[in-house]
């Protein structure tokens, strides 16, 4: 999977998964509440439950492709693992679990540091799975409409709407120009490659300006008067689903509170 490919795949997934037709409000409510609980939990239980349930929802119920999900998870997991290693090795105070005598100083690994590192790892993974839940099940269109309903300033919503659409147009253009350069051997040798990339970037910038102008003209031709109006029909949020999520969240909060003082290791 290439990088530009991954955006297209995420986008496609958001429109075609089995939750595509459920109310975006419900999905946003679920993802955000679980995210907040995950990052504010001090024990492992809540993040693990959250990670497990979002993964189950995504893979089993929404039928998101396993490969896509794992591919997406790989990036943050890699980053978090590195940071957590760092935390485990260099952070913490109090009870040491290992001491290594180096010639110039005594390197101590603390129990609290390791505990913090493990907790951080799970909290972040829980939170990340919530974000992916939102990204993979909710189309950008639905997000825009929800934002608009939530009275986010129009300029912001309309700008993002246009940016979203033209990201794909420009991705296509970039891909084509890149291929065209390669076919004419523009990428043989480092210097030539750098030069070609510079040209591509410059060209792309001009293309963007032109595209903007043409789109504006086209919008005017259909009676654009400074406001983008959209059809706002969205599936209504189901009361049962919302209640279910509320109960799930409440259970998590209780779990968080009860396990607050139990150490991680």
């Amino acid at each position, binding site marked *: 999977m290439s990088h530009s490919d991954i955006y*297209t795949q995420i*986008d*496609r997934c958001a*429109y075609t998964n089995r939750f595509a037709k459920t109310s975006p409000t419900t999905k946003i409510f679920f993802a955000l509440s679980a995210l907040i609980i995950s990052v504010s939990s001090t024990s492992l239980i809540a993040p693990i439950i959250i990670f497990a349930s979002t993964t189950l929802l995504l893979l089993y119920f929404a039928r998101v492709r396993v490969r896509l999900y794992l591919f997406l998870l790989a990036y943050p997991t890699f980053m978090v693992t590195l940071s957590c290693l760092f935390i485990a090795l260099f952070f913490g105070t109090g009870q040491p679990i290992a001491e290594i005598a180096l010639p110039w100083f005594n390197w101590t690994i603390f129990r609290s540091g390791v505990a913090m590192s493990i907790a951080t790892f799970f909290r972040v993974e829980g939170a990340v799975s919530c974000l992916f839940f939102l990204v993979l099940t909710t*189309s*950008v*269109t639905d997000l*825009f409409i929800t934002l608009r309903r939530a009275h986010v300033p129009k300029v912001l919503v309309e700008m993002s*709407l*246009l940016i*979203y*659409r*033209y990201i*794909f*147009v420009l991705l*296509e253009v970039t891909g084509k120009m890149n291929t065209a350069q390669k076919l004419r051997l523009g990428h043989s040798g480092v210097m030539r490659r750098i030069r070609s990339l510079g040209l591509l970037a410059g060209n792309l910038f001009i293309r963007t300006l032109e*595209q903007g102008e*043409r*789109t504006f*003209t*086209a*919008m*005017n*031709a*259909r*009676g*654009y*008067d400074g406001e*983008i*109006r*959209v*059809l*706002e*029909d969205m599936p209504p949020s189901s009361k049962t689903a919302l209640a279910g999520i509320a109960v799930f969240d409440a259970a998590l909060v209780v779990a968080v509170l009860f396990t607050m003082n139990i150490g991680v290791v």
Partner: protein
Amino acid sequence: MLFKLENLSHRYSDGTLALDNVNLDFAKGERIALLGTNGSGKTTLLNHLNGILQPTSGRILFEDQPLKYDAKSLLNLRKRVGFIFQDPNDQLFAPTVEQDVAFGPLNLGQPADQAKKAVEEALKVVGMAEYAEKPPHFLSYGQKKRVALAGVLAMQPEVIVMDEPTSNLDPRGTSDILHLLLHLNKEFGLTLLLATHDVDMVPLFANKLCILNKGKLVTTGSPVELFSNTNLIREVNLRSPRITHLFEVLKKENNLSVNPQLPLTISEARKEILRLLYLENPFENY
């Protein structure tokens, strides 16, 4: 007259004289094809018809009233004159097909349910109903062209102006779009004006042909009339439809007694061949 262009000239800011004193008029319900080579000024001319460009000299009358360029008059004009761009990517900006087609009707102030109905109908007409909820970047080029057309149809204009409606379409796509346009013209009296360099398509579509060359309107007439004037066609670096060319060669090289009004389409050619065969051998049954 629906549209009347009087001494229309347009000079771009870099000094290019893209239109040079064009006089042209057309009536309601006509099907007009603008033919010309690359850079002959077709797009420039079309862009004047719904106020995207303003003439540098001369004027344009719409229903005998000169075009005005304030926001309100433009909006009124654009309600009635729909415009379809050469590249559908310029036109499709909304995140889904349905939202994009709804843009025009909503701008006309239609309430949501009415707009929704207009969208459904327009998408059905162009055969894209099942793609309503897809984002445009999932569609093929030809499908995007259809959606762009639906976006304009949904506004129920009286005139549709199209820049190269069939470029980059496969034969099936081209023929579908053509039939669709002809149907709209016949059924709803829609006036159609399109720019093209696809000469084979012109006789199937147009009842009136305008030939542009280097910003000048060379001539206007029926396709039969203009394509029979082979010298003129060659002068402006165009060619006749393939089938017409064949008969031209048959006439010149083989001295076949072809009707001076050369056939332009397959069906006309068929008639002509049968006629010639009959002259050759009247006793055979064709």
